[in-house]
């Protein structure tokens, strides 16, 4: 029997036991927020501090309590039958639960995340997979996957997608890699990724390009992590010059998030470095900007106050303060002001040559 099933049964037996003794059963799980993590600079990711939340069975929690147990039961079935369900599918399965069904998917996602955290595993291990696509890859990389029917290896050459790209699957654990590239460049927007593919940037600088398409998915983070670890490749991150790019995207990729802190260990990319667009770039490259909204400024203040990663890095604190004073943000594609190929011909080579202009 798998470890997860043993754990699920242990929790359920605990609940039953409490009920039989007429005491209130409690489900415990780590609090999933930035308040409950600390930055471990040695390992390079957010780790849980260990504060727990308790879901005691009372009249007002009886619904979520019932739903949690039913979700655990679904997970057990999935593992036992070696099946998987997407988050959306799990939501639809709940429609069989009568009164205990979920009205909207976010409700079921939350409970799923709770159970995941309760078990301290990632959701694939409890039988659930995300809906979302992992991200796009182009460049000097051969991904070795398996044919679902024959089980034979398939070699996917990421240089051979022309103007398209290889798409990271939702589960990346079974993939193997072959590459002679020098580094990985993770890019925030699909637009910038297209631009670099168009100019064959990966060929010129011998690298692997990955488009994250906003906040990187777990699959994307894990893909980059494994690729980087197994091939000793440095990872450079290129996002918009705003707080969303710095923290929601870069920080999540590098050290993980508060929400999924229990799995950050596997999903972080500690050796990622931020090459741009930095607040200094806005000045150095005289980039066209947009004014920051009040909510952006608040996000910056919030990061200074609450983000353990920012608190650890003076460089980031300086960057935030600088940008807050500028009250401006710049997009990656603002570099097009100096010509469409400027990013390939000037910006990236200059930035990559000069590690002093990076942020940790």
């Amino acid at each position, binding site marked *: 029997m798998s470890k997860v099933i043993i754990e699920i049964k242990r929790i359920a037996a605990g609940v039953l036991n409490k*009920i*039989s003794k007429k005491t209130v059963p409690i489900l415990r799980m780590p609090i999933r927020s930035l308040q409950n993590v600390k930055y471990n600079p040695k390992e390079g990711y957010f780790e849980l501090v260990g504060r727990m939340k308790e879901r005691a069975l009372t009249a007002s929690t009886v619904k979520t*309590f019932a739903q949690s147990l039913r979700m655990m039961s679904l997970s057990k079935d999935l593992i036992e039958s070696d099946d998987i369900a997407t988050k959306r599918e799990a939501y639809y399965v709940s429609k069989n639960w009568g009164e205990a069904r979920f009205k909207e998917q976010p409700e079921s996602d939350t409970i799923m995340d709770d159970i995941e955290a309760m078990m301290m595993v990632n959701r694939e291990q409890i039988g659930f997979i995300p809906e979302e696509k992992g991200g796009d890859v182009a460049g000097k990389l051969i991904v070795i996957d398996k044919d679902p029917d024959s089980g034979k290896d398939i070699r996917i050459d990421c240089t051979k997608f022309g103007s398209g790209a290889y798409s990271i699957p939702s589960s990346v654990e079974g993939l193997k890699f072959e590459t002679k590239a020098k580094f990985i460049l993770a890019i925030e927007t699909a637009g910038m990724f297209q631009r670099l593919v168009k100019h064959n940037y990966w060929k010129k600088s011998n690298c692997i390009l990955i488009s994250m398409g906003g906040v990187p998915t777990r699959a994307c983070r894990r893909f980059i992590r494994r690729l980087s670890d197994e091939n000793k490749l440095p990872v450079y991150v290129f996002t918009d010059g705003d707080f969303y790019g710095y923290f929601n995207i870069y920080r999540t990729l590098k050290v993980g998030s508060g929400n999924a802190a229990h799995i950050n260990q596997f999903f972080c990319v500690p050796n990622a470095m931020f090459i741009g667009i930095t607040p200094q770039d806005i000045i150095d490259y005289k980039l066209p900007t947009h004014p920051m909204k009040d909510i952006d400024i608040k996000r910056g203040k919030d990061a200074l106050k609450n983000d353990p990663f920012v608190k650890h890095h003076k460089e980031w604190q300086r960057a935030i303060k600088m940008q807050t004073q500028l009250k401006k943000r710049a997009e990656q594609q603002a570099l097009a002001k100096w010509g469409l190929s400027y990013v390939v011909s000037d910006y990236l080579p200059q930035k990559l040559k000069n590690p002093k202009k990076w942020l940790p």
Partner: protein
Amino acid sequence: MAIKAVELAKGQRDIGVAEFFSRNRHLLGFDNKKKALMTTTKEAVDNSLDACEESNILPEVQVEIIDMKNDRFRVIIEDNGPGIIKKQIPKIFGKLLYGSKFHKLKMSRGQQGIGISASVMYGQLTTGRPAKIISKIDPTEPAHYYELKIDTKKNKPEIVKEAMMDWPKEHGTRVEIDIEASYQGGMQSVDQYLKETAIINPHVTIIYTNPKAQQTIFPRATEKKPKEAKEIKPHPYGVELGILIDMLKTTEFRTLQAFLQNEFTRVGAGTAKQICENAALLPKNHPKRLSCEQAEKLIDGIKRTKIIAPPTDSISPIGKELIEKGLRKEINAEFYCACTRPPNVYRGNPFIVEAGIAYGGAQEAEGQINIMRFANKVPLLYQQGACVITKSITQTNWRPYGLSQSNNAIPQGPCTLLVHIASVWVPFTSESKEAIAHYPEIIKEVKLAIRECGRMLGSYVNKKKRVKDEFKKRSYIEKYIPHVVEALKELLGEKAVDTARVENMLKELLEKKRGKLDDLKFDPAKNKDFDEELSNFGKDKPKKIENEEDAT
């Protein structure tokens, strides 16, 4: 120019009081046919009730309205009051601004001496027929019969016929007036007026025969007569210059000191001296010889003297219990409350505000709350928008009390709000006595009264909400326990979980902490005082009827 002035002078002459009001009958409440029926009935009934109360008689009033066709109605009101002596009958019914109440400061329904004679005049104008009056003051005396009209130019009674007759009643008065009118039920009808009168005057019996010859009896709910309202002298603070000059001229007292002490309430020797001192007048001055300037000084002196508030035994409120009882009779609600404020004073006139609320139950949940306004125990059915009561209601924030309300509007919800203002002189906005004027002191008191009731309402509504939430939570328990058990069975195997036992234990566990609950569900049979017949009376007509004047 002089010629022109002479010419103009030919057209300048006296305007008779009756002439004025016959042209401006809307000022007296005769602006449309339906309202005319209500007003005529109301003036006669109000007089009957006042007369009975003054003579310490338990009133029994018979109201009969006969449809004479072609928009003509005969209104007959007969009471068991003290009767009217022969000499006075023509003046009371045939002369406007004649009456006993205008010069008295005493809480009464009528106060101006216009009402009943105006009804006689309206009848005469619209049907040409005289009013017929029978009155008898003692079993040993004969009854007097009069047929009266009003000489509208001279404002004098015109006696069409007079006679002595036998009348089986021991004493009382019967008035019969033919008027042009129309009969309708609904919110502003004669039916509604009689019903509300019965509710607010529980010691009164009214026997009402409507134009369809259907008889309704509103029996008295109590034999206890209301505390008699005492007449008071004016309070110095309420006197204006013109009235003061009049009083100075007509007084029998020969020194200012004696005048002040005897003609006003709350003025003793000390206060009188103080007033004179503040007015720089000698207490020994002869009142009749005071000049206009000196009278002005006197007013000023009064203002600068501290005088205690007028006595308040001159007002007889309905009382908290009777208001609540009246509401219970009329409305089958879940919750009732009422309060009587302590007396206050505006312009030297004492007044008392009372309020009551009936909430929920059989009342409609949508739309504005129902407002019942009363002044000196008389229902006010028209001009709601112009009344101080309405203003006080709209200026009160009802949301904390559990009613919804848009800004400065009448609140919404299943609720009836009753407000009664009692005073020795109710300041109506017009002679038709439909709305009360906006004196700051009155607004303040009305607001305090409705807030007091509002707080009681609020705590009830909150309690109801809490109970509802609690019921919801309890139903949660019932709903989701089977799912907990089901999931446990799936997780641990059928054998490990005894469904019934675990379900029971869970139920016990979850309900352990939740105490007993008051059942606040509306039970229509719970209200023993509710009088369905009374409640439905006058409601069989379409609810919304034209509100020409209330559209403002």
